[in-house]
């Protein structure tokens, strides 16, 4: 089941928050906490981290797109090993 990469609650004011660029691409493996996409307000960038290890399956918002807190930026297919580990824990 893919895990969403969400826009974190980084701003409280109504100023526009944009996707600056993707630091990865669909099909690439990432570790949990890897920087995957960069957000931008005037003068400041913010790196969004991968919520889990796995493979990027899609990048929903392209560079320049305006986004808001909670929006889905992309999806990660969690690694098999993580799922296996979860399964073992349940046993």
């Amino acid at each position, binding site marked *: 089941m893919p895990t969403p990469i969400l826009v974190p609650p980084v701003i*409280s004011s109504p*100023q526009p928050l944009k996707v600056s660029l993707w630091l990865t691409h669909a099909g690439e493996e990432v570790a949990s906490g890897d920087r995957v996409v960069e*957000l931008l307000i005037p*003068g400041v*960038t913010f*790196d969004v981290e991968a919520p889990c290890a796995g493979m990027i399956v899609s990048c929903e918002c392209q560079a320049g797109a305006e986004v808001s807190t909670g929006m889905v930026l992309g999806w990660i297919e969690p690694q098999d090993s993580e799922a296996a580990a979860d399964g073992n824990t349940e046993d």
Partner: protein
Amino acid sequence: MNSPDADRNQTNQRNASIKVYMLGCVDFDSFLVLQEREFQQIRQQGTDQATLFVCEHPPLITVGREGSHAQLAQSSQEFKASQLEVRWINRGGGALLHAPGQLAVYPLLPLKQIGLGMDDFQNRLVQSLLEMSAEQGIAADQYPNSSDIFGRCGQFAFLGAAIKSWISYYGLYINVSPDMKLQRLIDANQHDHRLTSLSATLTREASMSSVRESIVRNLVQQFGYQQTHIFTRHPLLHRVKKKVYVHP
């Protein structure tokens, strides 16, 4: 994320310390090493302790995420021939020419620990710049929907910060009294403000030490730090002399 009022209360009540390094002229590569080292320390500590680097850089152009080739008055090859390196880096803001006379201020702050969001961080940087300007006798303002700080003669302060793992790095730049011939190598910014300096705006030589003291004090106040430890050198930095030839 907390409301701005809650943030203000939280930052006002904190009793954490901030290390301030006043470093003079530091080459950009050395600074990047220091910054990364300090960043990792802050991340590992997980406390609200912060670090502020204040320095100048030898001539160099950096281009942030809001910059473009259109801002550069020459091609990369021409800059290279002038021994002026152009680097594209992961900070906000556009193209900037760093040179002695321009104050570079880099606050490394654990934003999660101090309860600040991206916009709170941006606002406090801007407020610090505006208050510093007022103390220098300059009426400055922020261009709407941007982070540009300008006075009557043009833009003299620039934001170019970044946040990763909720820790800020890079920061802001103030043209105190740099060689303005060099600054002309960067095209006017997106709002058609002339690039200028505090000295040009004041029509007299602005004091680097006064600007440095003012911006550090205002930043420390804005982010609510109570204890400031000031260092005038860093143990990892060695003093070297390097001649740089630039032919604009």
